[in-house]
Structures are given as C-alpha cells and as structure tokens.
C-alpha cells in the first residue's frame, strides 16, 4: 500500500502542494488531474523522492519511503515528460544499460518488452533519429522491464497516436491486474476498463 499523507511543498514562494493525501492499495490506479501548473509533476516527483516536501510523508508498506529509500526505489519506476534516453545509443542499448543497473536483464526480455510496445522495428536505430512518439514507446518498454510495483507516469500518452494511447491503457490495466500500483498525471481521458480508479484533482484547495 502506497500512502501519501498531508504533503505540503513550496517552490520558491509558491505553495504548490497544499496538503495532498491519497492512498493506493495494490491494484489501484490514481489518476491526477488538474490545470497546467496545478502541481501534478511536482506531486509525482515528491512521491518518487526527487523533491523533498516541507511537510507530510510518503509511506510504502507501512515504512517511510524516505528512510527506506533504496528499497522503495527498487520497487518504483518513474517516467517523466521526456523519455530518459541517450540520443547516441540505440533504443535497445538504452534499455540494456538503464534496466541493467536496476536488475539483471536478458536480451530476450528486452525483445519481448519492445514487441509489446511495438518499438521493435526501430529499436536498433540511434534514439536521436526517432520521433517523439517512438521514443516514448522505447521508454514505455523500459517501464515494463523495470519490473516495479509502483509506476509513476507523467503524461504517459504524450506524443502517442491512438494506438499508442490504447497501448498505455492496456499496460496500465495489466499492471493493476498483476497487483501493481499506478499513479499517473493525465490530460486526456485514459480508457481504463477496471473500476479501481481513484481520481485526484489537484489545485482545487
């Protein structure tokens, strides 16, 4: 169970997060909505531990995420606005190194993930020659490969075509069915079938 309690965070003199709280059980998806600047990215980064909240706490399985940072991070994967890929490496190389530092990964696993996100045809081209949508597909393969329980996704459907949007919805549903937790900031509606979805609108308090 991932629980966020009373998160307050300032950026400079702006009070961005004003006491945000939510709880996500295994198999639940938290969809963050809100206007631009409402603090969706800030909240995701604070949950990931990249930002230090002034008040409040993130707990994972009853333990403070801050105190058990490395264990928490092993079970978490964060995908931001930009796909964290190296332009001079191919998609496959990017995944091999990025996932390799997290867990032992085989070439077959990488292939399977690339096929799942339909990134196989361009996986051996340098990432800088790929379109934004293609990069996102490679990055999504990385999210799959990380084998994490918690997915933190910031606008996962950005730059994706309609097939890609269905793919993201499908991946999230699979993750939930496997007992994982997804926290995603979304603009467009994601077509999620299952009912264990918590909507959290930011910037209203």
């Amino acid at each position, binding site marked *: 169970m991932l629980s966020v309690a009373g998160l307050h965070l300032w950026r400079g003199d702006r009070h961005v997060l004003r006491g945000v709280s939510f709880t996500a059980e295994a198999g639940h998806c938290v969809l963050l909505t809100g206007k631009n600047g409402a603090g969706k990215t800030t909240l995701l980064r604070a949950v*990931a*531990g*990249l*930002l*230090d909240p002034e008040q409040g706490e993130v707990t994972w399985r009853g333990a403070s995420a801050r105190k058990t940072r*490395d*264990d*928490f*991070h*092993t*079970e*978490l*994967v*964060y995908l*931001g606005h*930009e*796909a*964290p*890929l*190296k*332009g*001079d*490496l191919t998609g496959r*190389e990017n995944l091999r*190194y*990025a996932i*390799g*530092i*997290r*867990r*032992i990964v085989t070439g077959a696993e990488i292939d399977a993930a690339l096929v799942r996100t339909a990134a196989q045809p361009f996986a051996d081209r340098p990432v800088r020659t790929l379109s934004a949508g293609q990069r996102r597909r490679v990055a999504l393969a990385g999210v799959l490969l990380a084998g994490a329980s918690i997915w933190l996704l910031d606008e996962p459907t950005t730059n994706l075509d309609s097939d890609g949007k269905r793919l993201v919805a499908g991946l999230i549903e699979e993750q939930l069915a496997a007992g994982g937790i997804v926290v995603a900031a979304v603009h467009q509606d994601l077509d999620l079938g299952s009912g264990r979805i918590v909507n959290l609108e930011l910037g209203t308090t």
Partner: protein
Amino acid sequence: MKTRPLEAARLVMLRDLRLAFRKPSQLLQPLMFFMIVATLFPLTLTPELSRLRDAAPGVLWVGALLSSLLALEFLFRDDAQDGTLEQFALSGQSLTWMLFAKTCVHWLLTGLPLALSAPVAAVGLGVPAQAMWSVVASLALGGFALSLIGAISAGLTLGARRGGVLLSLLTLPLAVPILVFGADATQRAITGGEIAPPMYLLGAIAVLGVTLAPLAAAAAVRIGLE
C-alpha cells in the same frame, strides 16, 4: 534479481565509454586546448629552451588545470539534461558508486590522454627526455585528483543555468594543493631531484578524493535534481 552495486558501476562505465566513442569531439576539445596553450608559450615568452625550462612546470600544470575545468562541464551535464541522472538516483542503487564510475571514465577519457600527450608539449618547453616519465606520472595522478574534486563542483552546479564560471570558481581553491604539489613534482623531475615527496602528497589527495568525493558528489547531485 537486483543488480549488485559493482555490476551497476561497471555498466555505467561501459555506457559512458560507448557514448564517448560515438561522440569523440567532446573529448578532443580539452586536449586540443591544452596543446595550444602549451605551444603558445615558446612563441610568446622566449624561444630559449633554458628559460622555457624554468617556466615549464607552471605552463604544463596551469594548462592541465584549465583544460580539466573545460572537460568537467561535460561530466554530468548531458546526463542531467536528458534525465539519466534522475533515473540513476531512482534506480535503488548507490548513486555514490555510479558517480565514482562516471568520474573514473571521465579521467580515463580526458585526464589520462592529457598526461600521455604532455611529453609532446613538454619537449617544446625544453623538458629533458629523462624527466618525461615523471611528468606523465605526476599529471596522470594529479589529473585523477582533479577529476574527483571537480565531480563535487560539477554536482553542485547542476542546478545553475550558466554553471561554467561557477564551476571554475568552486573548483579552483580546492585544486590549488594539487597544482602546487604537481608543479613541484614536475620541477623536481626537470632538475633531476627526488620526485617521491610531492608524488606521495598528490597520492594522498587522490586517496582522500576517492573516499570522500563520490559521496559528496552524490549528495550534491541529489540536491541538484530538485
């Protein structure tokens, strides 16, 4: 199964080496800078080798320091921009080990080539042939210490928009001892003296750097990512 810390560090090294060989111009730039600085002195100061010989340690070490400052900018900048450092910080692995690996590769690709090419510059400055090994050794060791100390400043300036000048200002005071002992070692090598004492001191600084700098750099990078 989770990757062991040393294996993760090894992967970081392999990745950086592969990236470097795909984009070699970034590596050649500091090296070219060093060579140009060193060759300008005989043209401007005096062509007399005996006088140049007196200035050689200073020229070599100031050139090496400035060129290493130039190279330091590339240490974390690209990885910070494309989100790789963020993923390192969230990988559940020790950021300290991964940054240490990055720093070692950085030295391997900038500091070591500089030390190895120093004899070419040194010949032009009238350094006798028998002193070359000592010149290379002192620059290699001093360069390693410079890379380690520079990693802390590079981490601290990640968040700054035009970090280059700040980076130099932060690194220079810490680099002064390396400069002093390094130039002393080179001076002694040229005059045929005993180079062991300043080399031991350089070694001590490098050991101190190995133990403390990666920890400090990791803490600095975590702050820089905020």
